[in-house]
């Protein structure tokens, strides 16, 4: 359970970095915000909260951080999702002014409440207070429900959250490295796959 402790250690740091809109307690209603328009600055590096206000309360954010690290834990080779700020991406996503993300917003916010209710039903506590084993048990049940029917709540909640956390993770430089993507660097030449790859595939040299 090393990953749980590393996730917990990461919380204070990440809260210090919480976007300005959240720190100031401003939480405008969804739908007020505008998108980035048809001619955005493509060169700028955007962070969650730069374009539209975020949604999560402190408690919700803390809960999503825990979920991030259950879904993408740290291990010997790579950090956890919360260490990469993926929970803030989830917040950015569910706070999006575009219609495609509205469904995720509703289901994820509903799911976060459901998690605490479920933890209450099972262990008379909120989710974040459960021990890692009990947290995992709820998530494993949700993962089974999601596999059986990814559209039916609460499996749909876990399915969508898992997609966002894992996709959010693999779109960071650390996540790309973990999945074995070695590109996006300029090269003088491209020589095709190395010999050991061809050998493994039983293919002749190019």
């Amino acid at each position, binding site marked *: 359970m090393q990953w749980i402790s590393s996730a917990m250690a990461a919380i204070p740091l990440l809260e210090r970095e919480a976007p300005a809109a959240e720190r100031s307690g401003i939480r405008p209603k969804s739908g007020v915000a505008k998108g980035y328009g048809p001619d955005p600055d493509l060169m700028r590096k*955007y962070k969650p909260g730069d374009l539209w206000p975020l949604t999560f309360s402190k408690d919700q954010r803390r809960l999503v951080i825990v979920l991030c690290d259950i879904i*993408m*834990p740290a291990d010997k080779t790579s950090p956890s999702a919360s260490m990469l700020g993926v929970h803030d991406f989830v917040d950015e996503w569910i706070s999006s002014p575009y219609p495609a993300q509205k469904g995720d917003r509703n289901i994820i916010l509903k799911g976060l409440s459901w998690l605490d209710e479920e933890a209450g039903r099972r262990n008379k506590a909120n989710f974040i207070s459960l021990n890692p084993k009990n947290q995992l048990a709820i998530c*494993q049940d949700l993962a089974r429900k999601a596999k059986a029917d990814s559209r039916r709540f609460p499996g749909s909640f876990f399915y969508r959250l898992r997609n966002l956390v894992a996709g959010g993770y693999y779109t960071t430089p650390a996540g790309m490295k973990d*999945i074995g993507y070695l590109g996006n660097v300029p090269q*003088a030449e491209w020589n095709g796959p190395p010999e050991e790859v061809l050998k493994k595939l039983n293919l002749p040299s190019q």
Partner: protein
Amino acid sequence: MPIISPKQKQREYDVVIVGSGAGGGQMAYTLTMEGVKVLVLEAGRMFDPVSETAMFHTWDMAPLRGVATPDKQYGFYDASIESGWEIPGEPYTNASKDKLRQFVWWRQRMMGGRTNHWGRVSLRNGPYDFKTHSRQGVGFDWPISYDDLAPWYDKAEMLVGIFGDSEGIENSPDSSPGVLLPPPKFRAGELLARERAKKLGVSVVPVHRAILTKQQDAQRVPGKLHPGNKKAQRLLAANMRLRLKCFFATDCHRGCSIKAAFDSTSVYLTPALKTGNLDILPNAMALEVTLNKAGKAKGVTFIDKTTGTEQHVAGRVIVLAAGSQESVRLLLNSKSNRFPNGLANSSGKVGKYLTDSVASRVSGQIPALEALPLHNEDGVVGQQAYMPWWLAGQQQKLNFPGGYKALLVSGRKMPSLNTGKSFDRVSGGDGIPFGSKLKEDARRYHGSFQSIGAQGAMAANDDCYCELDPKVKDKWGIPVLRFHWKWSGDELRQVSHQQQAMTEILEAMGARFFRAPYVDEPEKAISQGGKIIHEVGGAIMGDNPEKSVTNQWGQTWDVPNLIIGDGATFPGTADKNPTLTIMALAYRAADHLAGELKKGNL
């Protein structure tokens, strides 16, 4: 002569071109190099591919991890601004409510047009593709043969810079020696496909794309393209030296700040401006082509989008290259006593015979490609290999006319937001994977999925056309297009064949599948009309003024100084992507026009 505002425009130009993309850019290049004074009207803003292209940005730097939104419909970093299938205030309509009978229309409102937004696949039409009716009994023959256009394919390829190989495949022509740049090496999955497809009689060969795999030969090519024209040779050589070879990273759809990938701004308009013969007027939305009393085109009325005012510019010749259906719309909206049904429409054929690539896809997972030793597989990013239509010689044995090509991209690509859920289908266990299992699955399976996409020929038919909507207007008050679309049995039978054949190719690679191919339900597999963004036609060329809108040089039969310079003149879609043929036709049309202007014929 430079980028101008409406106030700076000259009293009259030799040629006014509407549109700055593959067709308009090529014509502007060729004409200005020949000393013709040209104005290009572009509906969008200036766009600088060098300074506005986020080449190495990772998805975590983009809003929403860069997924497509209504504002950026092909993803955040796609080099498309103010563009998409739906543009606020600029609608179009469909006559049918049935999605299979609807057409979706991508518009690109920016300098360089759709050349900014393009995979750069650049294939020649083959000899059979120009004789569709004679060979297959459907659609139309073109008024030219492959041999008529071949010299301009060579010229366009040398100017643009295209990699590829000569394979001697029936109806997928080779280029002349020394024209193409060397193709990139195949990725592991592409080599596997090549090896395994052999037994099916399918060749996997290098695709042709407009990407410099080595710098162009600035010593040799300018002299070949501009014999006897020292100034043009000098300007082209200088521009070729500004273009670097590909550094084998980043998706061409983002644009190319080193100019290795072709776009109209970098390759056509930049040297054309240096001739001193070109003015470019951005933010100019063309409304109408105007006529003089003799019935010749005299200019273009446009809205200056920066002020909202209506303006007019005069030209001895008017070229429409606004992007097939946008050129058609301009013709239909240019009504006069002489042409009550739209300009150059005495045949009634303006808007008729829209065609598009017939496309479908099959995907699987290849166990042999799992957990391969890690290496950088970017290559030129995107397609490197394809399967040219392998049954061109046996077409009469099939139950559909026209073939298709199949494109594949393999390897560990840059992950996207969708990567997180992509392992569900291969991951064991009773729940969706998460935790350390998901991380292990991802390391093992990423890069082992293989998808093959087919794009095929479509012959012109009477059911696919556009007309002016009688009621709906855009925000400028211009009537909009209403589309009619219907796939014929020929297209649907072709898609059944695509589904079957692509499944067999993947099977030969050892694939696992997650659903049955749509062999018996092709309507479920076929891409909606317009989705592939290969639409052409609507002002087709021919050799009979009663059955076509233009002659072989894009000159409209009714108005000889009005020329269509984009894909609207295609009498049908081949199994090749349209852009290279748009460029070659525009090159040929511009050479012809320059000659006619010199002779005083226009």
